[in-house]
């Protein structure tokens, strides 16, 4: 802002004034005025574009890095030494078609076929299906859409943080998001990018008190994943914080409250569709019950993992399960620590929402899997306030930032390779 004020009081260079206007004083004044406005506009555009350019640059670089990692790792680790075997581009890309990605692509292609498919909410497969029908390559479309959504989320996020906190912190947050060890999930056909985009969109709208837009983003998030429903928490927190303005008139009250209905409406709508397809009135509930996720105390999953690692019947050192447990436990504890650290620094709605997501993830661990904390790997990526906390720390301690900037890409490459190549 200071630079804008400076420009307003700063005359354009004399040579430009001489070139464009006569010696008439009034004309000169008008020209100088227009030139000031023009310079102000250019300065504004430059300010606005630079962060977007930086974000796009970072996004492109990390996508290229992930592609290079895939190329070299897949080619040199799957092709026997010296053999003239050729790996095609589709097989190179389809190396990423693993885990939930296969389910999303199958649903996009063939629709919901069984009751268990309804565990995957419809917006993402619907989008992939709509575009994939035109191109024929569903997985590639899924990947591209996921990456574009991630880019949009990054730009949104930058603006939220730069607007409310500080540009440098915003920049660090974007950087950490791009190189976070499990951020490869944004690269493949997972719905995490869309969920992040809609969550960030909701917070953006809440920050500006655009209730209907917040409701709309929340609705889209709820159509993408059941975790979208948790956006009700920051919405309610913001409503409470704005209670004076809200109770000032009936219109303001209705304007704030009505969009809340959009959240449950989505869940009901999906359940209705599932009912039509399966004949089960409570299809979503049945899916949840069948998934093996049962409510436990939030610390149960962590204790179970600890006992599997260090208890009397601990897993043998050097087993695949042991490594997975260590990774998932570290990620979970890392986010828990960040939540505690961020509690005193972040706005209340950020902490509340993060608590909600962490609570649900930890209270419903994947009991059917030997690695109960496994889903946390990609779901925790949703918690942008945690990376915001990390950015605060990074800004405060440059050495810490430098170390993170070294450690994160190392783990990103390591996890990406093991994700695509583990037998």
């Amino acid at each position, binding site marked *: 802002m200071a630079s804008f004020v400076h420009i307003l009081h700063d005359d354009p260079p004399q040579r430009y004034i001489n070139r464009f206007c006569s010696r008439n004083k009034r004309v000169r004044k008008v020209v100088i005025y227009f030139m000031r406005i023009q310079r102000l506009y250019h300065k504004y555009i430059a300010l606005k574009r630079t962060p977007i350019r930086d974000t796009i640059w970072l996004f492109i670089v990390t996508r290229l890095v992930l592609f290079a990692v895939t190329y070299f790792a897949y080619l040199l680790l799957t092709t026997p030494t010296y053999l003239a075997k*050729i790996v095609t581009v589709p*097989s190179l890309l389809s190396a990423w078609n693993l885990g939930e990605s296969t389910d999303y692509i199958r649903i996009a292609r063939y629709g919901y076929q069984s009751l268990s498919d309804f565990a995957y909410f419809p917006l993402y497969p619907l989008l992939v299906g709509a575009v994939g029908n035109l191109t024929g390559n569903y997985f590639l479309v899924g990947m591209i859409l996921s990456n574009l959504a991630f880019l949009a989320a990054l730009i949104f996020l930058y603006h939220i943080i730069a607007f409310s906190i500080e540009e440098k912190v915003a920049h660090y947050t974007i950087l950490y998001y791009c190189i976070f060890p499990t951020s490869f999930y944004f690269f493949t056909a997972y719905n995490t990018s869309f969920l992040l985009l809609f969550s960030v969109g909701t917070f953006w709208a809440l920050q500006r008190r655009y209730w209907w837009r917040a409701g709309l983003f929340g609705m889209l998030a709820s159509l993408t994943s059941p975790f979208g429903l948790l956006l009700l928490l920051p919405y309610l927190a913001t409503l409470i914080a704005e209670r004076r303005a809200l109770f000032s008139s009936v219109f303001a009250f209705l304007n704030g409250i009505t969009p809340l209905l959009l959240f449950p409406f989505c869940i009901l709508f999906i359940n209705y569709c599932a009912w039509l397809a399966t004949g089960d009135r409570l299809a979503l509930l049945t899916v949840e019950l069948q998934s093996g996720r049962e409510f436990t105390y939030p610390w149960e999953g962590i204790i179970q993992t600890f006992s599997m690692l260090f208890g009397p019947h601990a897993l043998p050192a050097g087993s695949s399960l042991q490594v997975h447990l260590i990774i998932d436990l570290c990620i979970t504890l890392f986010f828990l620590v960040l939540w505690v650290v961020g509690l005193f620094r972040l706005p209340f709605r950020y902490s509340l929402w993060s608590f909600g997501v962490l609570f649900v993830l930890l209270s419903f661990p994947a009991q059917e*899997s030997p690695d109960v904390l496994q889903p946390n790997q990609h779901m925790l990526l949703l918690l942008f306030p945690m990376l915001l906390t990390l950015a605060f720390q990074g800004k405060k301690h440059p050495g810490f930032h430098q170390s993170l900037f070294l450690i994160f890409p190392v783990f990103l*490459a390591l996890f990406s390779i093991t994700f695509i190549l583990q037998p």
Partner: protein
Amino acid sequence: MRDLAVLLTGRSCLWWFLMKFSAILRTLWLFVLTRVLLVIVTYVGYILLNTPRDSTQAVKLEDMLMVWARWDALNFLRIAQHGYQVPTDFAFFPFFPLLIASISQYLGPWSYWLVGFMLSNLALFGTLLLLYQLAADIGGEKVACKAQLLFCIFPTSFYFFTAYNETLFLFFALGTLLALRRHHWWTAGLLGCLAALTRSVGLMLVFPFLVELWLQKDRVAINKRTLFFCLLPMLLIPLGTALYSLYCWYSTGDPIIFATVQENWSRRSAWPWAGIASAIYDLIWEQPFGSFYQAHILLDLGATLSFLALLLAGWRRIRLSYSIYNLILLLFCLVNPSLTHADPLISMQRLVLEEAPAFITLGFLCIEHPRLDKALQVFFAALLVTLSMIFYMNSWMV
């Protein structure tokens, strides 16, 4: 002398000590952090790539300890343990295996790998300190730190982690350059001699020696006696190569067997551009997308062209003797390409590491262009992990 007197009194001395101490601490932190990261990458990567998902079947820890003993590391360890046995062994210069053997013969046969690994890593720490000093002299602390970081996370810097002789050579070579810069001619000659005993390319340190003498001619060419005593240490460098030649002559009857066995790897003398042209031709016409050799040509050609570009970019930025050192080393590699091999620039991805002063240029460029800096850091760290995994999974990476 006056500078030293000022330095040794009061605040200056304390300031100098603190400066050095903080630089050493920073270097130690970078060294330890990158070593720990490579250990984690080995542990996690080796287990996950060798066992099925979520299985409780464990890999043998003793297997994991040996995963970094691959390719030439095995040759060095075999020579250290059993001496030179076949003609191709003579391609590996003796100082590194000799050093391993001199320690391990007291510890027992189990220790060869461990000693080789430790020596290589300790030499890396020394190299990092020397690189810091060289870079700080030219560009200051910021450039020095950046050069160190980029050197440590360069995609093929995993060779510094295993029992290869690259770090030992670099330690002697950079030591020579620093000693030359400080006018310690005898130290430079001695370190150059050890470099020449470590790798064949060590002989080329004669050229930066000559350049440095030329640059300091005002100090060197005062009279004939001074000139003679400055030139004399330079002869220690070819002496290193000559000593090994004598040994080769004594063992095999061929004093340059280390050069003649290079044909075993299809290496023949050619114009410097022949290897690059052949690699580009192969990449475009011979190798289809997604072939094994395409990936290797990309790595080798990319490394070669990047260091050529760094040589040009650094010509005016860094000291002339360092640029000459880079130029001569690059030429030395390029005039011996493997033209009949599917990858004509074989091993260039590793050999470019010897041109460590190029990292000072890269440090300059990264400080000047923050976007490039960020991109390179992410790119280098990710590729370092990828190539490390390819190496320890025993895929061809020489």
